[in-house]
């Protein structure tokens, strides 16, 4: 038997003619934080629902916490925690009542359940919120409560489907601290997100395009493989209108807005900081500063998703 926390082999799901998940294979080690990224509609949530035993695979197999998702979905569900995109909390109940309700559903009761619920409020920084009506809590706190509900029964594996969507930067940092504490305590975390800065905390990342897993590696290795070009960062005024002119410069492979600046991928043999600054200046940009940058996971995402399933060798 394997000791993997999650193991998928040729996992496939079709809806009529549409193949939502197409022969996906990967393994996740116990205690790992595994990021699952992709565009909207790429098949991330469908993969999670199969791994949770909520949706039967059309083909392929998956084992989660040692149980086969198709043959033993009940055992899978008892061994995992799941926080969905539209996490299910009763908005009219006080925070602690939601936890007691979740615990009851997992067979906990009485004093041990209450103790565990209080322990989790403490752990998630909600100790002062036990009596707060869930619907009146700010989104960031409600998200932490949903996480508390998902780990109440001490699952070996937790699935978090976009847990930080719409959460402000302060609350997001607090949430990721919790995720990393869980992982340090041995819990396996499978997480999807569209915030690529926080994806840096994942040990490994899988990237889905149109139902297929096209890249799977550590953040550092993904950057080396998918963004081998030099990255330059341009800052200044009036960059937007000047960006188009930059795309015409030979050796400039891509130009993308990043905040108020631009990220460029260039062929270092043909283009340097000076050429980029000159081209931007000639196109009307002002106070231009161009510096060497480091590839980010967002650069990787744009390279993988923009290029489709062709692999890094398909780069122009």
């Amino acid at each position, binding site marked *: 038997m394997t000791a993997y926390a999650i193991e998928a082999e040729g996992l496939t799901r079709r809806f009529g003619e549409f193949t939502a998940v197409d022969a996906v294979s990967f393994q996740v080690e116990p205690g790992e934080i595994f990021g699952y990224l*992709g*565009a*909207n*509609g*790429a098949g991330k949530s469908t993969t999670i629902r199969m791994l949770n035993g909520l949706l039967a695979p059309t083909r392929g197999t998956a084992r989660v916490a040692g149980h086969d998702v198709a043959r033993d979905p009940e055992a899978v569900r008892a061994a995992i925690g799941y926080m969905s*995109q539209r996490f299910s909390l009763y908005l009219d109940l006080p925070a602690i009542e939601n936890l007691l309700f979740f615990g009851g559903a997992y067979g906990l009761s009485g004093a041990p359940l209450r103790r565990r619920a209080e322990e989790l409020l403490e752990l998630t920084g909600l100790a002062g919120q036990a009596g707060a009506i869930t619907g*009146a809590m*700010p*989104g*960031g*706190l409600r998200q932490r409560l949903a996480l508390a509900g998902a780990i109440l029964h001490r699952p070996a594996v937790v699935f978090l489907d*976009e847990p930080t*969507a*719409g*959460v*402000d*930067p*302060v*609350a997001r*940092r607090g949430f990721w*601290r919790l995720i*990393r504490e869980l992982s*340090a305590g041995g819990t396996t975390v499978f997480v999807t997100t*569209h915030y*690529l*800065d*926080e994806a*840096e*905390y994942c040990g490994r990342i899988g990237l889905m395009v149109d139902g297929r897993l096209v890249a799977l590696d550590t*953040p*550092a290795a993904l*950057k080396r493989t998918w963004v081998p070009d030099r990255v330059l960062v341009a800052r200044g*005024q009036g960059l*937007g209108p000047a960006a188009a002119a930059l795309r015409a410069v030979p050796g400039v492979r891509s130009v*993308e*807005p*990043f*905040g*108020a600046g631009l990220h460029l991928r260039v062929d270092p043999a043909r283009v340097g900081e000076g050429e980029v600054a000159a081209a931007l200046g000639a196109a009307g940009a002002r106070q231009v500063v161009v510096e060497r940058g*480091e*590839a*980010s996971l*967002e650069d990787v*995402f*744009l390279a993988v*998703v*923009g290029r489709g399933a062709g692999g890094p060798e398909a780069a122009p």
Partner: protein
Amino acid sequence: MAADAPAATTLEARGMVRRFGAVTALDGLGFALARGELFGLVGPDGAGKTTAIRALAGLIDLDEGEARVLGQRPEAVRERLGLMPQQYSLYRDLSVGENLDFFSRLYVLPRAVFRRRAERLLEITRLGPFLDRRADALSGGMYKKLALSCALLHEPEVLLLDEPTNGVDPVSRRELWALLHEFVEGGMTVLVSTPYMDEAERCGRVALVHRGRLLLEGAPPALIAGFEDEAYEVRGGEREAVDRALGAAPAVLAASPAGERLRVVVARGGGAEVARALSPLGARLEPVAPDFEDLFLSRLREAA
């Protein structure tokens, strides 16, 4: 600013106060937008952003103050105003095409005008091939693009967007922003709330809202120039160990990954102390230029 707003003011919040029971969601919030401005509304969860947008759209009454759109009450100029709420603005059991059609009838658009605009919006959003797909079968990003299209159909002069890119993937997020810039260049006035600080940085002006009040307002470069704390990247050391040390240092306001390194916001004057805590771990601090997210983290810690 509200007292002598420029003549071209298209959207104005004047001392807006709104209470829900014991909670004061808006506590004297005020700002004004000139025609053709792209204005960002940022702040922590529960700061009052959604309430402010609802008030500006004329969907809720204010206890004090007022919301003015094109110099009038929002209700009076509804056909010149577009709104994209945070959730559920579409009919989930209608297709992409049927939703567009529904909104065109709501705004009583002539059929020829509707066809021309719908065609253009479908082209820009690349939703054309999905015309017959039901709204509830769209991915999160496609749903948001359709909601934006429906809010744009009647070509409003003023557009209010409440966190339009939540749950939208990085590629679609870029496309939505490119679309917004296009409309702003065409003279539309846009107010957008967002939890993404890189998006805030792309607005002409930004208001940072906290507990229903205006904490800061201005152009992002000017606001960043006023950053009073210290921003660093940590070089060297093992990340988990460095992170623990940062968590224990009182001067650290926030730490977050920036690529393989950690980026830290340190309270003014606290750099030396943090550097001493890191040095046994083989790590050191390197000063970096602050960005809008650093500013947000620093100002909110101060206000808390």
